């Protein structure tokens, strides 16, 4: 379970997230939608503390995962990031082989057992529905894969360290329609094992893959509801306007 309590976030003077409260249940897919610059990606990146990397930012309020404050001093960031996997907007494989890309997270976390690594790599590639396509060329450079395959490789890479949560920052926006539908199918099948949070600017995608949807605008969480209700009969008029394409 992921919780945000009274979260405010600042880039220098800019107030990027305004007093957000939200709870995401285990083994569900939650989608964040909203016009660009609304803060949805920033909010997502709070949960694996990726925003720590940007100088001059400040957080108020609490972010909890399973009741634990992930910004507590005693918590180690690299442990947190192992539990919370992330898939980025553009596929960003390392300049290494396919196998080494997936094994990377295990290796940096001190796993030395080769048999175990090989097994996890296969499981993760299967989990990301990529195994059949790459099983004969695991030693080849990851750059030889197509864009859609690269993105599924990045998902496999995130799965390999056995996270409980997957954060996806517009994972299909750089892909062609066929690759997109493959990634969407994948998200669907991953739901039973992972808690997934996905940021998307594509409302059909949110409608297709998610159980609950949050609509962000100008740094505020305007509405958070079951996806079905959100797209059929939203509570707020801004949501209605956005979804029907009146602005944004």
């Amino acid at each position, binding site marked *: 379970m992921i919780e945000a309590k009274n979260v405010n976030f600042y880039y220098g003077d800019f107030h990027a997230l305004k007093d957000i409260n939200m709870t995401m249940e285990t083994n569900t897919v939650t989608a964040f939608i909203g016009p660009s610059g609304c803060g949805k990606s920033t909010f997502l990146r709070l949960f694996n503390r990726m925003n720590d990397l940007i100088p001059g930012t400040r957080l108020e309020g609490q972010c909890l995962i399973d009741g634990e404050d992930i910004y507590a001093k005693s918590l*180690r960031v*690299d442990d947190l990031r192992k539990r919370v996997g992330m898939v980025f907007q553009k596929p960003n494989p390392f300049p290494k082989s396919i196998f080494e890309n997936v094994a990377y997270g295990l290796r*940096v*976390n*001190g796993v030395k057992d080769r048999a175990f690594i090989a097994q996890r790599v296969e499981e993760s590639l299967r989990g990301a529905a990529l195994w059949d396509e790459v099983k004969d060329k695991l030693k080849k450079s990851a750059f030889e894969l197509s864009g859609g395959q690269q993105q599924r490789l990045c998902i496999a890479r995130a799965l390999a360290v056995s996270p409980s949560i997957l954060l996806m920052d517009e994972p299909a926006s750089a892909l062609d329609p066929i690759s997109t539908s493959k990634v969407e199918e994948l998200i669907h099948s991953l739901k039973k094992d992972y808690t997934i949070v996905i940021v998307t600017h594509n409302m059909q995608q949110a409608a297709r893959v998610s159980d609950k949807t949050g609509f962000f605008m100008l740094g505020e969480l305007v509405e958070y509801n079951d996806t079905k209700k959100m797209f059929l009969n939203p509570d707020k008029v801004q949501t209605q306007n956005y979804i029907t394409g009146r602005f944004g």
Partner: protein
Amino acid sequence: MMSKKTSQNIAFWVFRILGLVVVAILFWILGFIIYHGAGVINWKFLTTAPTDGMTGGGIFPAIVGTFCLIVGSMVVAFPLGVMSAIYTTEYAGNGKLVRFIRIMTNNLGSIPSIIFGLFGMALFVNALGFGDSIIAGSFTLGLLVLPLVIRTTEEALKAIPDSFRTGSLALGATKLQTIRRVILPMAFPNITTGLILSIGRVSGETAPILFTVAAYFLPKLPTSIYDQVMALPYHLYVIATSGTDLEATRPIAYGTALVLIIIVLLMNLLASFLRRHFGKKVKTN
């Protein structure tokens, strides 16, 4: 097994210390020369000739000589370099030819300076019969800094947006007129930085002038471009390694080294100042 946090801490401390050590070494060299040289430099040191078998007096002839070489080599390198850069950026397009020229320029820039010394001696001193002279030294040094002038000029020209070129051409100006009246004046401040950096380089080079111009001891000032001169870097080499009384000449050596460093520092500072100052101007235009 060491936790990954511990190994990170160890590694980062190693790098911080390495950084500190290297920076300390570099500052040590600078500080050492400044510390020992500062007391030596005064008006008299800069304006009198060496005396007492080069154990006394100043370095005036060497300063004059280096000045002559700076002027001479710039007369050679600047027009040639600027024209060459104009050709490659404005005329030659983007084909194989330009790539070839650029590779050649890079290669010329990577040739060790002693080779320029050999070449200058063979061509200018012997084959062309200039003898050991300012003109032979200037040509040698000029060719040495040519790649630097070309590279900075190319960068300056490329920084001018194409809209200025098309704008001028659209008014019926020829390509040559466009370059002369629009592009060159706009790029000029940045081209000057190349000139200044070259001056810094020329004033410190020793190997190319060893056999083309430099004189061991010559208190008389040059009267024509066919005269030999003393030069600061060669003078430092001579009094540091083969003076008549090494201990007595040490202070003069420190002073000469400091003068050399000051010239190089000034030229670099001036260049970066110009670049920052005019770099902004071109952008806001």
